[in-house]
């Protein structure tokens, strides 16, 4: 299936731990994103990479670090996890074209719970 896939789907961990979320897309896109959806379902962009280069870096704690080994993968590493990091994290991808011609394709999310 062509898609944006994220692993794991669920992640439960304790405060202070370090964790990673992996994302892969096989749509041939060259831009990838991380979005955070909070408990009220509000979606906010965190990062965007274009062909392994960081393009968008929102005001996110530096405990969050994206890593893009190639244009089909964008992983999210989170250090020293805090309770407030609990959320659903979505990976997305698109072509490097003007927005109208390249909509974002989202993965199904990783629900992170910090206890």
């Amino acid at each position, binding site marked *: 299936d062509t898609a944006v896939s994220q692993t794991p789907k669920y992640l439960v961990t304790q405060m202070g731990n370090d964790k990673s979320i992996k994302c892969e897309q096989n749509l041939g896109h060259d831009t990838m994103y991380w979005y955070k959806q909070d408990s009220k*379902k509000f979606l906010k962009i965190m990062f965007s990479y274009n062909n392994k280069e960081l393009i968008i870096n929102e005001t996110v704690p530096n405990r969050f670090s994206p890593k893009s080994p190639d244009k089909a993968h964008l992983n999210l590493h989170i250090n020293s996890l805090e309770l407030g990091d609990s959320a659903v994290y979505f990976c997305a991808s698109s072509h490097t074209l003007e927005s109208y011609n390249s909509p974002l394709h*989202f993965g199904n999310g990783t629900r992170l719970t910090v206890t």
Partner: protein
Amino acid sequence: QQQVKQSPQSLIVQKGGISIINCAYENTAFDYFPWYQQFPGKGPALLIAIRPDVSEKKEGRFTISFNKSAKQFSLHIMDSQPGDSATYFCAASRYQGAQKLVFGQGTRLTINP
């Protein structure tokens, strides 16, 4: 600062009725206005999108109405079906090497059979 405001937060419509969700934006530099549909446990999926040089776009039962002077746009779902029950998000962006979508707060739509 919430750049895209969406209302209502929740909406209940009878099957066959018209569902209307409204959004207002602040940044006049936005040049792309998509609507996303999200089912529980899934990621948002593009439903329909419009550019600001067009006042209306229709795809099947879904229509976006866009009012540039008022900085408002809305989604109309005609002949609403139970399968349309989902959370709907409006968004806006200005392309800057990548799409920085700014989302509204979401509307939970329930279509009663």
